[in-house]
């Protein structure tokens, strides 16, 4: 153990002396997290291809038509599922941006203005419930606009054109006016008057929506969520998937875990390279001649990498907490997440360092592999913005699990079962890396 500690201390001291290595390990990840945090904090662009689940509890022709309208929208990728619980879990894990639940009775509500507006469209009376990933709030505005638009389209198809609605209101008022007072009492008249007022507002909204659609088709600039906000989110109720739990307070809640990924990458490259350098510059020979085993040499290198990876992540979280308002939801889980990420990437370091035979070859190979994995894993562009095929392969990237495990601890509020998945994935990467790395290292020594 003493020898392992000596070897680890040596590597930590070497890292401290290596200014470029220290920069990429410590400074760059912080700079990345801050820069992208600032960029995203002011972002208002429209993401494309947001993955959204739909649960159609109604199963009516109207709800099917509504789903079809959603599917026609290029900014969404709709998947229809049957289980609300599974959908919520997928959103909670960050696998999908949102879930739309079309409630039972949707078809009747959209076809019946009286039923729709008579009870008012409050939280309880929402036609569509939208469960969103708090980490992807930027998609909320888009969803609101798209879903509300599709809803109006569906209502219009169910009730007819705006003029028809207006005519229905007008005819209704006339019928009430013609009715004797003893047949339709005053309170009923007032209530029905309110219904007919709502119908006229609906007609006006339908015309406004048609006008906006015409403008879009004519090439007028989109106003995105603003249109939807102007409609007041009619008939749509948004819910965070983690009700009563804190979502990300700012974009830094997202970019700090991403910065962690870059810090881990720098650790892998730095220590992996140091292992290759020990071999090519002869110091490995010196170590192996000393009364220490090859396992101890590797353990020393791994310990230094692990400690540095933990340190880098801790510094990043601390910077986020002190300067950018990042608050850790579960400190205990964060410790486990940091340790699991450090373990995984230490294992990866061991495997990658044993692959190349020259410093240049190892560094080039390591950077190429890690960069691709980082980009696929959400280290650069958040997963929600990625094309479908990239999301499909993101699971092979340890960066995805490292980011997700830290997010789980910082703001996702994941329970133990939900947090276990990413942590187990990281443990798997770590064990695989260690086994492969030790095997390759020992094989290289026997040559």
């Amino acid at each position: 153990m003493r020898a392992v500690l000596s070897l680890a201390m040596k590597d930590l001291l070497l890292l401290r002396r290596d200014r470029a290595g220290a920069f990429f390990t410590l400074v760059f990840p912080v700079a990345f997290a801050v820069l992208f945090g600032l960029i995203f904090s002011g972002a208002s662009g429209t993401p494309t291809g947001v993955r959204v689940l739909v649960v159609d509890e109604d199963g009516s022709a109207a709800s099917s038509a509504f789903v079809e309208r959603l599917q026609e929208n290029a900014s969404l990728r709709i998947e229809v599922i049957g289980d609300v619980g599974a959908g919520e879990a997928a959103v909670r894990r960050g696998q999908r941006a949102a879930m739309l639940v079309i409630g039972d009775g949707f078809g009747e509500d959209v076809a019946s203005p009286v039923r729709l507006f008579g009870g008012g469209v409050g939280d309880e009376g929402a036609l569509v419930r939208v469960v969103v990933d708090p980490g992807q709030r930027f998609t909320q505005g888009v969803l609101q606009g798209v879903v509300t638009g599709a809803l109006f389209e569906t209502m219009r198809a169910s009730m007819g054109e705006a003029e028809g609605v207006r005519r229905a209101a007008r005819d209704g008022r006339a019928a009430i006016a013609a009715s004797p007072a003893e047949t339709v009492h005053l309170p009923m008249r007032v209530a029905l008057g309110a219904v007919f007022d709502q119908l006229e507002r609906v007609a006006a909204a339908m015309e406004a929506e048609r006008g906006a659609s015409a403008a879009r088709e004519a090439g007028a600039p989109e106003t995105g969520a603003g249109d939807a906000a102007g409609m007041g989110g009619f008939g749509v109720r948004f819910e965070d998937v983690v009700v009563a739990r804190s979502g990300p307070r700012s974009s830094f809640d997202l970019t700090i875990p991403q910065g962690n990924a870059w810090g881990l990458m720098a650790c892998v490259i730095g220590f992996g390279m140091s292992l290759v350098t020990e071999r090519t510059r002869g110091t490995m020979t010196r170590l192996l001649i000393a009364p220490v085993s090859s396992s101890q040499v590797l353990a020393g290198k791994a310990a230094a990498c692990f400690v540095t990876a933990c340190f880098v992540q801790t510094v990043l979280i601390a910077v986020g907490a002190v300067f950018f308002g990042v608050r850790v939801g579960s400190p205990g889980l964060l410790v486990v997440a940091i340790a699991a990420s450090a373990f995984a990437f230490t294992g990866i370091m061991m495997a990658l360092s044993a692959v190349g035979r020259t410093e240049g070859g190892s560094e080039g190979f390591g950077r190429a592999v890690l960069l691709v994995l980082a980009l696929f894993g959400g280290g650069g562009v958040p997963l929600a913005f990625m094309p479908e095929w990239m999301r499909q392969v993101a699971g092979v990237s340890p960066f995805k699990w490292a980011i997700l495990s830290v997010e789980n601890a910082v703001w996702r509020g994941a329970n133990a079962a939900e947090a276990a998945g990413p942590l187990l994935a990281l443990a798997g990467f770590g064990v695989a890396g260690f086994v492969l790395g030790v095997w390759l290292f020992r094989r290289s020594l026997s040559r």
Partner: protein
Amino acid sequence: MGAGGVWWGLGRYAGRVLTLREVHKSYGSTVAVDGLSLRIEAGEVFGLLGPNGAGKSTTIGLAVGLLRPDRGEVELAGLGSPTRASVRRHLGACPQQIALYEQFSGEENLLFLGKLHGLDRATRKRRAAELLERVGLTARAKDRVSAYSGGMQRRLNIAAALVHDPKLVLLDEPTAGVDPHSRHALFELVRALKSEGRTVVYTTHYMEEAQRLCDRVGVIDQGRVLALGTVDELIAAHGGQSVVTVLRDGASGEDKAERIETDDPMRVIARVAGEPGAREVRLERPDLEGVFLHLTGRSLRD
């Protein structure tokens, strides 16, 4: 048993420090060491002389436990195979390549290696100071190794092998690429190690070094020891005859010189010196180069 103990002076290992028996080592289809046997005696400077690629470094790698033999046995007397970490505590080795941490100072390199060998803090500091003094680097002790000259790095490379005060020291081509000043300093260091009672195994492809420093020399080529003995024994057995070259009055140029091959050059010189007209007499004694040439038909520098 401590590193400074006399563990080879006892019992059936008396006098013997390191033994290699019928050792084979191949890299794929390339045979690096082919049935090599050696017995290194306590207190001697043993030279392994051979051209590049002869198997010297592989032999050192096997002797220090860095490599495992495919067949055969390597043993440090009374301790076992050097592939065991605890056995390696008793030997010091200087690789052919400069094996130092360039970002560390000379002192830091020695302190780190002392720690790795389990020396306590006070002993580490004392040994580092002693060794830096010994290799003439005290004034540069705090400088990073990257700022050292090649010769200084070579000297520190050897000092690093001595930090735990081993009784057996293996030096793999320690003078490769050094300037004459540093080479001289290294020769002095090897002599000092011998005078302290340490056993030194020294590989080189410079026959001058082997002749100057080594008590016994093993001539190695293609992974096999071709001849073994003191320098005089090797020359006597394989070096051929001395050559006395005589230039007489009136003769000019080497083509007019008379070459006399003899086993007793001093007698020939005495005879020639008494002859009239002998203007110049030169003696060429056989050396290890000749031994190698005789044994392999090739020059050491081929």
